[in-house]
């Protein structure tokens, strides 16, 4: 028993079975079944309104499915520190310093007080923002704020990181920096699950692609295969429509 407690079960794989999420009778997510394993970077693409963000929120537990089941390999009990994190399109930072924002997240995750500041500083260093640690977080630039949000997620050492179009509002320079950090987190062993509109980004960061269309999971393929030979007509049309830009 003690040995089982010492090594907690891995959170992954995550299993979605016949998941439906409906608002006012309309199925935003329509019978999606899917298993997400550790390792490969999963990128979710699809046209507007395909349900990408909703799927991410269902996985992360911010929404409850109307029917179907979503099960992690290890049970996440309410009130226990979370082993997964999410970075949103618009970072939500608190009115305190960049460092204090991360310390706060560590406090919520019940990291012992004496370790918080060092871990927060380390996370800021990894996203290249150590010089701005004492800066009020909300007056940083959009790109810097998103990096603080990533540092906050990284400091928590999540097994899984969900990203919902993290670079949608950022310029190319800031986008590049965010992509670098995501790559580094992946290299450090965090499972990446990301929604993006940017197909160039999906190619750069994705090992596998999930193609969502009108709430259905139409295709799941390696990034190479998906971009060369999409299996579904919808995906082919989607790529055709998006690629010229």
């Amino acid at each position, binding site marked *: 028993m003690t040995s089982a407690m010492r090594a907690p079960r891995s959170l992954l794989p995550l299993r979605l079975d016949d998941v439906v999420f409906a608002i006012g009778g309309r199925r935003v997510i329509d019978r999606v079944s899917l298993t997400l394993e550790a390792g490969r970077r999963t990128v979710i693409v699809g046209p507007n309104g395909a349900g990408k963000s909703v799927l991410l929120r269902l996985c992360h537990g*911010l929404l409850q499915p109307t029917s179907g089941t979503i099960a992690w390999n290890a049970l996440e009990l309410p*009130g226990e520190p979370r082993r997964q994190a*999410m970075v*949103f399109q618009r970072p*939500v930072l608190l009115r305190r310093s960049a460092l204090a924002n991360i310390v706060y997240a560590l406090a919520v995750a019940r990291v012992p007080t004496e370790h918080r500041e060092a871990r927060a500083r380390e996370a800021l260093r990894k996203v290249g923002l150590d010089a701005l640690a004492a800066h009020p977080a909300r*007056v940083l630039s959009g790109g810097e704020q998103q990096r603080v949000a990533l540092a906050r997620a990284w400091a928590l050492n999540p097994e899984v990181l969900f990203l919902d179009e993290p670079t949608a509002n950022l310029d190319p320079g800031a986008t590049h920096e965010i992509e670098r950090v995501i790559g580094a987190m992946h290299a450090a062993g965090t499972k990446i699950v990301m929604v993006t509109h940017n197909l160039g980004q999906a190619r750069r960061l994705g090992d596998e692609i999930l193609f969502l269309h009108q709430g259905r999971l139409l295709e799941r393929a390696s990034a190479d295969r998906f971009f060369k030979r999409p299996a579904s007509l919808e995906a082919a049309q989607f790529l055709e429509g998006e690629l010229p830009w």
Partner: protein
Amino acid sequence: MSDLSQATAEALRLVAGGDPKLLDIVLLSLRVSLTAVVFACAVGLPLGATVAVSRFPGRRTVVVVLNALMGLPPVVVGLAVYLLLSRAGPLGAMGLLFTPTAMVIAQAILITPIIAALSRQVVEDAWVEYREQLRSLGERRFGAVLTMLWDLRFSLVTIVLAGFGRAAAEVGAVMIVGGNIDGVTRVMTTAIALETSKGDLPLALGLGIVLLTIVLALNAAADIVKDTAQRRYG
């Protein structure tokens, strides 16, 4: 006209000269109203924030009632506290009627709904933005309430001041439960009412000037704090 200018001149002399009688009344007013604000905030802020971040059956009713209670007539609150504290009332044995404590109780009851209802609105508006992030981090309800109150501290200052303004300016409740006893429970508003009816306009006007100045100064200070803080923290 000359009456008014004479009274005003006399009032200014009283204020400038720090008339001890006037000073006592002002200090008691501040003591009573500030204490009431502290208690009202201790209850109203967490209450408002909790309603803002929670979803439960009957929530809309609670919100409507909170909003309605903002308009509590001071005299009715005074009467209720009077009945509670009077010799024959349930708390009569404590002997609080006609003491500053009774006035604090009445004012706190009067402004707690104001602070709760207004902070509920402010926190709920911001909660739309914060909700998913805080839940993603694993924050529970109690933690979320504290986080929201602290993060919105600069907006909440205005609400606390609205509460203070209401407490310091009301006359009906403190008149009933305090009794306007000279040197014991006489505050600015009750003194103004009394001196006016007695015809001692200089003292009434002087107190009026002080009351206005305090409220103005506090609001100006709060505005400066809020503005600087918002520029600094975003």
